[in-house]
């Protein structure tokens, strides 16, 4: 069971309190009506589904009811950071972050 740092509550909480809501940073097209069927289908359904570093959207349903982002390794399941909506990830796949680095300290703060 994952242990997830809620950036609003400021604590690590058990996965049971959260709901995973898919890949993060998928913005709704600003002008849907000008999208082709292919563009609209891509927005709705096509996902990176990455092995490794993955940015995803979670909802702290049982806690503060806030959505936030998680950067997680989908192979080791390690969480490398969590950050609020509107913020950008510090850890990205390009940085070649070692799969075993611990990016959250005991208090769950990003380090």
């Amino acid at each position, binding site marked *: 069971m994952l242990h997830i740092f809620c950036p609003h509550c400021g604590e690590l909480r058990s996965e049971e309190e959260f709901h995973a809501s898919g890949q993060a940073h998928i913005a709704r097209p600003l002008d849907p009506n000008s999208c082709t069927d292919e563009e*609209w289908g891509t927005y709705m359904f096509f996902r990176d589904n990455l092995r490794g570093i993955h940015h995803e959207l979670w909802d702290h349903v049982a806690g503060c009811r806030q959505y936030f982002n998680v950067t997680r390794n989908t192979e080791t399941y390690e969480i490398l950071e969590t950050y609020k909506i509107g913020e950008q990830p510090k850890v990205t796949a390009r940085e070649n972050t070692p799969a075993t680095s611990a990016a959250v300290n005991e208090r769950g703060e990003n380090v």
Partner: protein
Amino acid sequence: MSQTYRLSSGGRVDRSKVLNFTFNGKSYQGYAGDSLAAALLANGVDIVGRSFKYSRPRGIIASGTEEPNAILQLGATEATQIPNVRATQQPLYSGLVATSTNGWPNVNTDVMGILGKVGGSMMPPGFYYKTFMYPKSFWMTYEKYIRKAAGLGRSPLQNDPDSYDYMNQHCDVLIVGSGPAGLAAALAAGRSGARVILADEQEEFGGSLLDTRETLDGKPAADWVASVIAELQAMPEVTLLPRATVNGYHDHNFLTIHERLTDHLGDHAPLGQVRHRVHRVRAKRVVLATGAHERPLVYGNNDVPGNMLAGAISVYVRRYGVAPGRKLVLSTNNDHAYRAALDWHDAGLQVVAIADARHNPRGSLVEEARAKGIRILTSSAIIESRGTKHVTGARVAAIDTVAHKVTSPGEWLECDLIGTSGGYSPIVHLASHLGGRPVWRDDILGFVPGDAPQKRVCVGGINGVYALGDALADGFEGGVRAATEAGFQPTTGSLPKTVARKEEASVALFQVPHDKGTARAPKQFVDQQNDVTAAAIELATREGFESVEHVKRYTALGFGTDQGKLGNINGLAIAARSMGITIPQMGTTMFRPNYTPVTFGAVAGRHCGHIFEPVRFTALHSWHLKNNAEFEDVGQWKRPWYFPKPGEDLHTAVERECKAVRASVGLLDASTLGKIDIQGPDAREFLNRVYTNAWTKLDVGKARYGLMCKEDGMVFDDGVTACVADNHFIMTTTTGGAARVLQWLELYHQTEWPELKVYFTSVTDHWATMTLSGPNSRKLLAEVTDIDLDKDAFPFMTWKEGNVGGVPARVFRISFTGELSYEVNVQANYAMGVLEKIVEAGKKYNLTPYGTETMHVLRAEKGFIIVGQDTDGSMNPDDLNMSWCVGRNKPFSWIGLRGMNREDCLREDRKQLVGLKPVDPKKWLPEGAQLVNDPNQPIPMDMVGHVTSSYAFNSLGYSFAMGVVKGGLKRMGERVYSPQADGSVIEAEIVSSVFFDPKGEQQNV
């Protein structure tokens, strides 16, 4: 027979407490502190079961979790049966009833055993795959017989009288295992002030210290154990969990511990106590001090009862005061196993010989044995044992471990007990549950934990650190490290002094060579529970199963309840040798939870029976109960389905309820509908974006129906939203959709449109809603309210505030039945009082409570949809003939608009919602019936739609339905056909879905 094999003294058992128990119907006695296995051995019980495939007699091999054979059925009553209990882990209690799980008519004379002897040679691994194929139809028959042989124990056939629960634990340091390393780690971590949990699967703490011949500070090791436990008990932040097996190591340092609270007391828990408890632990650091399992050597007939692990012999002698024989021959490749012979010798029993595979062993223990005059045969091993129901002899021969050959004819030694030791396998299961692959070490001939990202420390035997003094030091250091990493100050302390010994390396030996070769030698068992032999493993590799997983799956190696704790490494070694590769090249199979089996009930915890899942009730529930309601599950809610009067069934009750509403007035508890309070200057704009229709012009005081779609344009919820002030709306949702819709609104607000000033708060539970529906609803309501109900003052689709039954209420004039209706909303605390006043006033109007079924009928007559019943996630508003509810020209491209305009959504022949009127008004179309155009088409038929809602009763006097039909909206008046399972066909006319009062004259009065 009374404990013939009990030694006259020694052991940790309480000889003053005699416990009676039965095994296979015979009565025996043991002592408090015995394991069931120890008590059976004390009574000279050799055969505890019959093997799975060959039905060979099997005896106890081990003393702990690794035992593959002594798998028994426990339980004195039907309801308290427990299948597959390992006798080595079951403490004896008074009145224990155990039986063998295989063997017919009994384990001593087993008919299947004869079959096993005859048919055994026909049952190589994979034989199932190669036969039973012909004739084609016969597999089910073959399978019936194969299944008869399946399984070990049996399930009880009555419900479990016991209960189970969870305890959520959080700690700084979880220590798994309380042997020397674990205890030292616990001391170090505990003294630092950290929150520590120490868990051990055994009845008492101490692990190997409970049976070791070693001393600590010159005193028995158990004395040190007692002093450590006393110190730990005095620490407020230390939790001690004996009888508690850490079974799973899950992500992010979440571990599960299976604690058996009462299994040592009886076959069911004393009243008021839970039988098992699962501790769900989140640990900052984990110290794995799980130790090592001794590995048996693989030689001919090594499964005959009386073949035991060397270490197990020491445990029985020293911990339980039981000698499982008289004359011992020991076969070993290492120093450590000599302890068994020394313990045996010290107990006054005869050590016939020790066969040591090494050329010239000179370690301290070896010399001690020599000094005691024990015969030691070097470069030798037991290559086969003899005996049918018990060991009668061991054939010891000289072997060449490198060439894997027998180099002398050897000799038969008379004995009744064989001890075997092929070295030690660190218990890396927990360390590997998260996929970290173990690493082979040639120096200790075992796998140790590989690197893993988990915050854990491995100490002692799991690291291949076996010498007592080293294990203590490794444990203490690990405890300090774990506590420090968890944020505590390091502690120091002195550890007890151990006796230093010279220990020599062991020699690699797994399968012992036999002069006949593997395939023709007496069976050399690798995995006794699954009857997997060395020959089977060789055969698997010969057939091309070269991956370790293939070998495992083809032979069933390690698939038993012991998950191969004894056999897996030997199996790997045999497969590797047979393919000419090394053990690390072969690799290990995956380790998965559980380490040892866990009771289903314990995994389920308290979440069963009446608290399996929350049941949600409205504020009026007790009134429904009093009025004899039958309930329907809608999501987690219990909603009144109908209110039968004596003698009524669903049909007659609903008919009566429907008539009452159409003729006078009915009462529905609508409190379960989701309600969301929406406030903010941008509330309207938000509604415009999430609903398909327009909200800009909805005046204060008015209400409007709205549809919600997902981005794909498919309808996912609906409801009425009222404007209660310029920036203030009350939204209603479907009963099942309430939470989903609120989450949906928050999702879009938080992630897409945070600039919109609007807030959402659920008020579902706050408002209780009573719907009065029917031509007399106005008259009735007028008697209990001060609101002006005049049709012009309070028209359809508006709402008013006022008092109802003396309580402030918001009353909405909206209708789901097509009748004049008022939805009365009051603060839920006051709902029951208001209800009773309405009911009292309603007597003269024959006010009739109705449930969801009547509500469904009445709304269907009006063609109103129920999302989830008339829709299925593939219906857009146009499909539902609800284009009137779609604002295609709204300035913002609301959720669903773009999806609705995709190519496939614009097809004209999509399934569309229509009314269906059976041509024979007495025939009823089942909900879910499929529709075709040509009832005479052979199967497979072309289906054009199906029935979504259907009711036998109608205010107009005929059965009617709603359904979806391809292109149905352009087929009004045409016929469709529904072929039924009984061969009949129901013919129906496609009609408008509004059956009743299409002009709305009943509701707009």
